């Protein structure tokens, strides 16, 4: 048993040290002998045991005595721990690959593969949004929201993603192109819900609402343009008017719509519904019974849409 543990540990240490590589080779030889039911004649286990005991005995004779008497038991214990660690590591790797987090979907706990937590960052709704939400008390779902009032791309696809995003949210801006490419690749539907997580962006919900109300056929061209370029320009009305023009949308009509008190009412109602989903920040993406909070890698969405082997399709 000791050979197996040593082989694994020394193989890892061998990445950094040639002497450990040599020991790892000896351990491997020992392992191969053991698995083929032959005695380990290399003396590796004896050598390592002696070295370990030699170190321990100089610090504590009692500990050395205990180690000597229980060496094999301890080897088994460490093997069990190692096995558990390996299982957890493989699980973490799998979860990271499929959900973007080692600890499961949308977990913000530390993940060694994503140490900065980039896959779970959101622009939070907590303080600045118009309609405050109380996320911890809600389960994320779209049950209380009338989705037909929001712009939908490929409405007849029967397979729909729902994206709550904010033009001004850098994480939304990171995610939007990914979602768009998935929509194009897998020919699925996409419902876009703008939610103003940043105070200066309140008006953008009205803007999106008005474009969709006035010229729904131009909405997606306009939406794509809003997520392109430097987000700092979004605070410039001239720039926005330019984007409207570029998308073929009548800017005057849109601005008039924005100024209309009825729009204010309609959008506020929409935002109340959006808040009822329990989401905590943007981007939040719904797909069937799955929710993705934060900017996930492309593969995470693709796996959700088409399974683990999405790349074969």
């Amino acid at each position, binding site marked *: 048993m000791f050979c197996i543990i040593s082989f694994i540990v020394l193989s890892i240490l061998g990445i950094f040290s040639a002497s450990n590589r040599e020991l790892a080779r000896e351990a491997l030889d020992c392992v191969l002998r053991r698995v083929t039911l032959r005695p380990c004649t290399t003396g590796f286990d*004896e050598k390592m045991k*002696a070295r370990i*005991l030699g170190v321990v005995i100089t610090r504590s004779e009692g500990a050395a005595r205990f180690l000597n008497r229980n060496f094999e038991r301890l080897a088994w214990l460490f093997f069990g721990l190692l096995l558990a660690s390996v299982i957890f590591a493989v699980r973490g790797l799998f979860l990271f690959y499929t959900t973007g987090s080692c600890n499961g979907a949308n977990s913000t706990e530390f993940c060694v593969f994503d140490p900065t937590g980039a896959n779970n960052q959101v622009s939070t709704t907590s303080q600045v949004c118009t309609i405050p939400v109380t996320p911890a008390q809600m389960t994320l779902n779209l049950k209380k929201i009338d989705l037909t009032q929001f712009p939908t791309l490929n409405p007849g696809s029967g397979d729909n993603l729902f994206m709550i995003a904010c033009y001004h949210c850098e994480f939304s801006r990171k995610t939007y192109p990914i979602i768009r490419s998935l929509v194009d690749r897998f020919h699925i539907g996409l419902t876009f819900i703008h939610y103003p997580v940043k105070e200066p962006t309140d008006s953008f919900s009205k803007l999106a609402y008005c474009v969709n109300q006035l010229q729904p056929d131009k909405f997606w061209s306009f939406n794509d343009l809003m997520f392109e370029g430097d987000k700092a320009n979004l605070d410039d009305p001239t720039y926005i008017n330019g984007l409207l023009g570029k998308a073929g949308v009548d800017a005057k009509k849109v601005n008039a719509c924005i100024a209309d008190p009825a729009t204010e009412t309609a959008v506020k109602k929409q935002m109340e519904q959006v808040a009822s989903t329990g989401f905590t920040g943007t981007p939040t993406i719904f797909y069937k019974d799955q929710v993705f909070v934060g900017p996930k890698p492309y593969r995470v969405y693709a796996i959700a849409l088409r399974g683990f082997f999405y790349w074969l399709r």
Partner: protein
Amino acid sequence: MDINKIRLDFPFFAQNSTKKPQIYLDTACQSLRPQVVLDAMNRYYQLEPACGGRSMHHLSAAVSKQVDETRMAAARFFHASRKEEIIFTRNTTEGINIVANSLGLAAGDTVVISGKEHNSNLIPWQMLVRRAGINLKIIPPLPDGTFNIQEFEQFIASGVKLVSLGMTSNLDGVTIPAAEVVKAAHRAGALVLLDAAQAAPHRPIDVRSLDVDFLALSGHKMLGPSGTGILYGKYALLEKLSPFLVGGDTVATSTYDSCEFLPPPEKFEAGLQDYAGIYGLKAAFEYIQKVGFDFIQKQETSLNEFITGEISSLPGLTILGPADPKLRGGIINFTIEGIDSHRIALMLDQMAGVMVRSGQHCVHSWFNDRQIKGSVRASTYFYNTLEEAAVFVENLKKIRKVL
């Protein structure tokens, strides 16, 4: 002599102040070297890196002179009649192999060895048993490891061609009564080859007084460079032997179908020699002579007595060989019941930098016959101190207590 002054001559000890402690108790395997030996070797590589005995230029002449002087030094060291009785070899094993393969032993000839021989004095004869059909007689040691001279004398009378014995055993440090052995062998008409690998570094050897026919030894156990050794042979016998390893520098001339061998020792020294090693070997002989065998033996005995006294009562510990440390030279070889010898050796090294040998010490036959897996051998030399011995003892006691 001042041991501390002696230790200053060995660069190995100088590093102890900067690195982790190192206590070298493995001289039976290979000794440490004084600076003079290293300097002599460097002199060859730095100043005289030429072929000896071949070219005519002054550098070659300098090398030839040094080789000749080393041969002379060796002859003086072992009291040989003439320098031509000294053959340079790589080690004891090569010396024994030269004798084994040059004597012309044939089917029915008998060779006698002891039951404690190093593989170098066992395997060459085993090969001749298979290849030439010789008989190999093994004289088992007495229970305390000493040589069974009675059985030897009884057997030798039956007609033996060669007696080949380790003069001092690397297993337990026991030295055979070489003079008696040679006398008995010669009375029976047998030649005698002594393996002096473990004897030459520790006691004076006078080959003429012993009247031994061949004597093989290694330089690396007596302060000399590794890869050096000497085979002594009586000149008259060497002249009769057919060389075993032949080629360059062994012949005076050759034609396409014949050659004329040079006289001894050249005919046994095929190919380019280890000149640097030969330079170092001379320095080693001179250094040992300067220290003197009286001091060497006194120091070894006091170390062995101290260690033996301290460890012999440890539970489960058995010292191989006679109980009297005076009979074991610088060697303390022991087993501890239930503890693997390699584990003890590795732990001593790990704990306090104490370097000892573990395993079967190239005397597998003795261990296998007794079904002993291995032993731990501490071997001291004149450069070891009582303080070092005390560290060894202290850590061994700790291991015994814990394991």
